[in-house]
């Protein structure tokens, strides 16, 4: 059959760029430098427990903040006139078209001890804030960089909700607040869920943000893995083991979340 041939490039692409790296990571994680099978790499991970805890904690905090900011933005946006909606969606996406490093550098110069923020605070006579090179700065960086990935899926799911459902709810006696809590919110959960995935996964594995805004003071999984592959600690076998464990935890995490959220709005096409 013809269509089969069309899939060959994709299968090839997947094999080379997705399957091969994962296989390599597996191989590295379970072997020593001399090529013998071992579980020692995983035993070493125990020593990095605090990095794991910290990574998941900060990524979770960033994800929650993204929901708290992103949901109302998406909801309010969906109520605006079409023209305004398009404009705002473009503004939300605009930073994404700029280089990730540049954007994060910009935050450096805002949060620095002598940066824009502190100069402003000094100007209005408030005490200076030490944010740069702290976990707060890292979370700010995560929220800033990943917020659009929370807003957009929520927004597009809310937009797809049939307006007649809102009318039906009001018809049945629901005041505006109940219309939201009983219809809009449950129907928008799939959007929240995909937003959470799209924020949490990159946040948990980021290393650029930690390096620029955390100044090496905050070490997360991304940094740990990077150090094992490129840094002074060079040990790709331990690095692979860390990557595998992280992947495993993230997958379990996502699975549980989808299971929990799936009961609500599964009929909304996503």
């Amino acid at each position, binding site marked *: 059959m013809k269509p089969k041939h069309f899939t060959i490039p994709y299968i090839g692409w997947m094999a080379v760029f997705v399957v091969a790296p994962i296989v390599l990571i597996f191989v590295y994680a379970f072997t020593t430098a001399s090529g013998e099978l071992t579980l020692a790499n995983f035993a070493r991970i125990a020593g990095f427990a605090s990095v794991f805890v910290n990574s998941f904690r900060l990524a979770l905090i960033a994800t929650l903040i993204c929901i708290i900011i992103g949901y109302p933005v998406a909801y309010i946006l969906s109520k605006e006139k079409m023209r305004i909606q398009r404009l705002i969606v473009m503004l939300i996406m605009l930073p994404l078209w700029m280089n990730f490093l540049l954007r994060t550098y910009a935050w450096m110069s805002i949060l620095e001890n002598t940066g824009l923020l502190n100069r402003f605070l000094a100007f209005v006579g408030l005490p200076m804030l030490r944010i740069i090179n702290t976990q707060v700065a890292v979370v700010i960086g995560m929220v800033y960089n990943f917020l659009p990935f929370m807003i957009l899926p929520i927004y597009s799911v809310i937009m797809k909700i049939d307006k007649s*459902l809102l*009318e039906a709810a009001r018809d*049945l*006696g629901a005041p505006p607040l109940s219309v939201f809590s009983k219809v809009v919110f449950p129907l928008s959960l799939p959007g929240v869920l995909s937003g959470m995935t799209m924020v949490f996964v990159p946040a948990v594995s980021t290393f650029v943000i930690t390096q620029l805004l955390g100044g090496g003071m905050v070490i997360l999984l991304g940094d740990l893995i990077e150090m094992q592959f490129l840094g002074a600690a060079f040990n790709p076998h331990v690095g692979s083991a860390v990557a595998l464990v992280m992947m495993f935890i993230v997958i379990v995490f996502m699975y549980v979340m989808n299971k929990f959220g799936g009961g609500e709005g599964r*009929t909304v096409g996503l």
Partner: protein
Amino acid sequence: MPKELIRLSDCSMAFDGEVVLNNLNLYINDKEFLTLLGPSGCGKTTTLRIIGGFQRQTSGDVFFDGVRINDVPPHKRMVNTVFQKYALFTHLNVFENVAFGLRLKREDGKKLTKSDIASRVSEMLDIVSLSGFEKRDVASLSGGQQQRVAIARALVNQPKVLLLDEPLGALDMRLRKDMQNELKRIQQTTGITFVYVTHDQEEALAMSDTVVVMEKGVIQQIGTPEDIYNEPKNAFVADFIGESNIVDGCMHSDGVVEIFGRKFACLDKGFAPMEHVDVVIRPEDVDIVDVKDGMLTGTVTNITFKGMLYDIIVDFKGFKWLIQTTDLSPVGSKIGIKIDPDGIHIMKKSEFSGVFGDYSSYSAEYDDISDVEYEPDGSDSEAAAYET
């Protein structure tokens, strides 16, 4: 003396300057079954939406029980709606859909108890023959089942007024007839006022106490089903309700009308001498006789067997009539016709004169074409979308 419950007073609606309802005046009595009947796009749904509070009329007032409710939001109006496209909550199962209104309800300032809600829901599901479907996902139901959930969801709240927007549109003939009887029975036993929208004239005549015929955002006629059928006000109503031959006539005096150069006796009076009028002759009111006994003579050009009767098309001097008869006269034969005075109905000339009531373009498929569910807004694809 029936009590007036809802009144629309000089209601007009325009979207971006385009007038879709023009100066509607209408009152609806308590416990009445009133039907808004008209072709697609005539403004039926818009009228319901104004009563339900989902659309604010451009001008005019809406009264409920004598109180002006222009500014009362939908959730505070004592009406419930069965929406044209069901609008079921896809994230809730059948039970929760029906229970939706009950969970928000306060009776004597208190919420309903769980068991109370459960018993009311199951009673209502029983009425719409959906017992046992409580746990089902609404998306997994057929179009007809979804429609019945929508009816149950509205009815369970025991509103003063139920607005139904083509609630039986997705049902097959058989189920449609059953549900018509069922709805009529529910309306009579509960005493809830029904404002029913349909474009099916048979359904309107069969179910309603009062029929409101609409076209182009204007009420053409309000009356009982018998009034509307027997005494149509203009050519539009005559044509839309049942089959009608509509011909030009001239009133010579009270009770005498001239058609095709011949005088006929009729029962209508009160027209100016020699006033030009539209004359309606229903296909079943024409008797076929020998040519020599006939008041008019015509040639049979078409015959369609309809079970009990034949629909025949007869050419009178180039103007074709539809006649229903039990006697078969072959195509090409000459026949005479007789019309009793009560078979003739006279109407004033209107903007619809000359537009309707000619069967020149008649073909056997004519009925199919005019009776198809004409839904340009794509509710079919909507139904399909629910299946996925």
